[in-house]
């Protein structure tokens, strides 16, 4: 009886400790479970792949370091894919605290592919006010962002000569950890201006995207670390990059953590089931 009671009431500190071990061990010694790409990740990949060389992909960093583990690997993989295909990149963000990550990702990946700032990529940075920024870019990007992240006028950047508003952006990706993010872009840029877009979200808010996938408002979805690892897999498989794949490596930990939670749920239920049975039996007597 005592053991069942213990199973039904495991102290949360014990759960935390076991979970920590289960997460850390595969990071040190990877199990090598390969992540295959889902249809939704492939849809994002194909949309980026279909952008003609010379045209621009726009990416919005709608996350901060809090969700870096899931969304930052997506940003790097997408940038590598775009640069390898000679697609130009416009990077901006709705979260001020994510700008440092954007700067870091651009400087690393642009060096790998010898891309030139202003010709192959532009970092618009962040502007205050969410709706005015999204809606303003639908009318005129240069009016919304007169200068880039570094304070340089957009008129001085050759890449921006042919780009006026969303009509000149064949595909857009929001890497979203909450609000403002995916929902805001869909409500204002997609619905209002017909911007073709995909999204990368944290795993916890991935379900948020399903209605928009079904209505076709979202072309594809990268959900959490799994989505990031799927994109990394595709970029590597197609030979666009041989760089490190941090999300794919971390998937082992996530697999084991899910297994642990499942085991805990089963144990909890065994305890609960037997306690209930014994109590009912005593009650009958």
């Amino acid at each position, binding site marked *: 009886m005592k053991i069942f009671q213990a199973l039904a009431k495991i102290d949360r500190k014990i*759960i935390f400790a076991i*979970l920590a071990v289960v997460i850390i061990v595969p990071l040190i010694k990877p199990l090598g479970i390969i992540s295959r790409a889902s249809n939704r990740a492939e849809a994002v990949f194909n949309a980026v792949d279909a952008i003609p060389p010379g045209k621009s992909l726009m990416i919005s960093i709608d996350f901060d370091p809090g969700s*870096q583990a899931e969304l930052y690997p997506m940003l790097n993989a997408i940038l590598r894919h775009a640069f390898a295909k000679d697609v130009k990149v416009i990077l901006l963000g709705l979260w001020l*605290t994510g700008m440092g990550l954007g700067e870091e990702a651009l400087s690393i990946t642009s060096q790998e592919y010898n891309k030139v700032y202003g010709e192959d990529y532009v970092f618009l940075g962040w502007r205050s006010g969410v709706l005015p920024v999204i809606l303003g870019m639908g009318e005129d990007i240069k009016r919304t962002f007169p200068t880039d992240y570094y304070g340089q006028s957009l008129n001085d950047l050759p890449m921006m000569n042919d780009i006026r508003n969303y009509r000149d952006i064949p595909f857009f990706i929001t890497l979203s950890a909450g609000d403002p993010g995916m929902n805001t872009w869909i409500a204002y840029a997609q619905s209002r201006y017909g911007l073709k877009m995909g999204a990368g979200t944290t795993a916890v808010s991935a*379900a948020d995207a399903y209605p928009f996938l079904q209505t076709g408002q979202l072309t594809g979805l990268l959900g959490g670390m799994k989505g990031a690892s799927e994109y990394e897999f595709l970029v590597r498989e197609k030979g666009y990059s041989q760089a490190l794949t941090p999300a794919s490596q971390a998937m082992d930990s996530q697999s084991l953590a*899910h297994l642990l939670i499942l085991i805990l749920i089963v144990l909890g239920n065994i305890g609960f089931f037997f306690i209930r049975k014994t109590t009912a039996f005593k009650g009958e007597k």
Partner: protein
Amino acid sequence: MQRQIPLMLCLVFGVFMIIQFFIPHPISTTAYEIVLRWVRIIAIFALVLGVGSLTMHHSNKIKRKVKGWQFSIITLIAAVITALVGLLGMNVVDGRLIFFAGIGRTSLLQTFFQNFYIPVNSTMFAMLAFYMASAAYRAFRARTKEATLLLIAAFFVMLGMVPIGSAISPRLPEFAEWILSVPNLAAKRGIMFGIALGAIATSLKIILGIERGWLGGGK
């Protein structure tokens, strides 16, 4: 008067935004852009209020020496230093501190960001994994038929969402995906309809001045 002016502004701009949505003419879009520009300007001023509140709150704590007042000192010092480092564009180049050199890769702000902000924020987010494990363990009990159904669905979704699921059976991720995008989404859409209508009704009540709670309540 103090109440009537905001209510009037709310009515005028609320009705304007509804009408503007249907008019693509430049007169309407220009007026809309002007409103958006104002929103942006006002949002910046609100930040000043926030900083003011933060300073007052923590200064009071320090003055009154309430429990944990030492942390308030750290908060205020951190806020001031971060603001100065950003505003003065402090950069460290070849071991020398230079000013007004922007906020690029070599800036102190970027260093702070990468070495303080990123690790601390990631730690908070990482706590979610632990809380999810303990909450799932506590909540997923087969107490009733509905709870059992929820439990089984959760079991398949959790397995299907990680590579180990597809290693067990390639059909598992498909089944998990089906659970999420069919029965789960059907229920969510029902709730979403309610939420959307509720949001429209609340907006209408605010525009018409029936709902005044946001103004501090009262008649």
